[in-house]
């Protein structure tokens, strides 16, 4: 049937904080039930993570604290250097080069033009001393748009798309509500029309009614712009509503991966069964 190449190919992605040693992998993980290597004290945030992401797909990554899901996404966005593994991104040189091994300049190019990221902590995703429009402009300028008129009109367009009042373009997001800050982040992430958007706990910490609105917005944008997304969440309800496929992580390892409804209704792995049984 479909034989298209995946947009993103992640192979054996590993991220270790600390000196690392030959025993790190074997002394941490699911059986050891810890992220900390007992030999060298390094933290194995994630190890041997492999998956494919196809065009127009929304992949969920779910797990509890310490599962490695945020670290994984930060490695993909180059916020954190990966210790090992390979990532092939079809939008960059047709997926023929490992993007983890690129120069800083080449990585910056990917960050600015080909990926967008929405952070859990607003301080990571926005500069709270810039206006909402200024934050979006930051991303546009990084990609080479310098014309002020173009920047302003593009920022206005994005804010409108993410249902932020365009009149707030010149206000500081410091004074915005949590939901509005998230939406400015989404607008910023979409600034340069990236094919891949990474969302880290995009509804966490928001009021229930605001969560609903953000979820609806994300679904709509994904469909209209045909985005591929990775949605990190510890909330299985969000995962169910947004994603087609889901990856379950624990202590830095992938536990199970499959169609989202299958993971939630017919979990195979004992840990997944435990996780799913805890839904309120």
């Amino acid at each position, binding site marked *: *049937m*479909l034989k298209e190449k995946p947009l993103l190919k992640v192979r054996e992605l590993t991220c270790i904080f600390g000196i690392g040693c030959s025993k790190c992998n074997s002394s941490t993980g699911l059986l050891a039930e810890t992220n900390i290597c007992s030999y060298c004290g390094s933290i194995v945030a994630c190890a041997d993570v492999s998956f494919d992401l*196809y065009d127009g*797909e929304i992949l969920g990554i779910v797990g509890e604290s310490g599962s490695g899901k945020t670290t994984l996404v930060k490695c993909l966005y180059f916020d954190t250097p990966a210790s090992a593994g390979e990532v092939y991104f079809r939008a960059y040189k047709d997926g023929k080069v490992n993007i983890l091994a690129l120069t800083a300049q080449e990585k910056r190019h990917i960050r600015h033009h080909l990926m967008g990221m929405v952070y859990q902590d607003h301080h990571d995703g926005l500069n709270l001393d810039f206006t909402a429009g200024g934050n979006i402009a930051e991303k546009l300028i990084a990609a080479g748009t310098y014309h002020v008129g173009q920047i302003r009109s593009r920022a206005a367009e994005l804010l409108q798309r993410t249902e932020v009042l365009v009149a707030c373009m010149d206000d500081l997001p410091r004074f915005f509500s949590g939901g509005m800050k998230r939406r400015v982040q989404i607008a910023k992430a979409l600034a340069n029309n990236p094919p891949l958007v990474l969302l880290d706990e995009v509804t966490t910490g928001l009021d229930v*009614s605001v969560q*609903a*609105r953000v*979820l*609806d917005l994300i*679904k709509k944008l994904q*469909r209209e712009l045909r985005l591929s997304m990775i949605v990190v969440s510890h909330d299985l309800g969000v995962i*169910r*509503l947004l994603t*087609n*496929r889901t990856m379950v992580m624990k202590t830095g390892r992938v536990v199970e991966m*499959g*169609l989202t*409804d*299958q993971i939630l*209704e*017919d979990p*195979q*792995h*004992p840990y997944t*069964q*435990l996780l799913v*049984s805890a839904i309120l």
Partner: protein
Amino acid sequence: MADMLKVLGLTKIFTLHLLGGKKVVGCKGISFCLRAGEVLGISAPSGAGKSTILKCIYRTYIATAGQALYLSSDGNIIDLIQASENDIISLRQREIGYVSQFLRVVPRVSAINVVAEKLLINGWEESKALKVSASLLEYLGIPKDLWEASPVTFSGGQQQRINIARAVINRPRLLLLDEPTASLDDQAKQRINDLILDLKRSGSAILIASHDRENLELVSDRILFLNYVDEANLRRESINVCKVAHN
């Protein structure tokens, strides 16, 4: 006419790790065929495995053994149980519809948009999709002043109709219905039956799981009966008995 769906030896055994690896049989050794333009009912008491069969075909459950050979729109036969996840996602979007017993929607999305979603995913233009959605809502008797409301607030029977509407709006080639008329009054049941017969006439293959034997006999061409065997030992074996209903 070739079979649209051929199920062979479908078996699903659940392993409950939280109970120390206890095994529960969902269904065992199920085999049947379904042609285009045919309606097959699955009749059984509650818990006998009707939903399990549908969910194994739709891949919500991973079957333990067996095959579900489906003739897709491009002429290829694909085993739904072994197919790749992406193939399943694509088939679900375009050709295979499933109506579960429960309605789960993103809150705050209006009923008319919930129903139109499948068309929008398939590239339909928004105004056209909403028009089709509106006519379907009208046909199913959902009051017009509720179309802009979120179905989360609707009655059980209305939610069920929304659930069915959103699965059939793109006229899927294979439709799996799990207790479609459970919460409905007679008039709504009739409307759903008419909808099923309309889809059948246009060539869809339809599988309906229901404990409402009477209603099932009204729409089905054939009915599959599932039985318990050896219930005392909690080991269930489902036996096929096909009965030709009047039609």
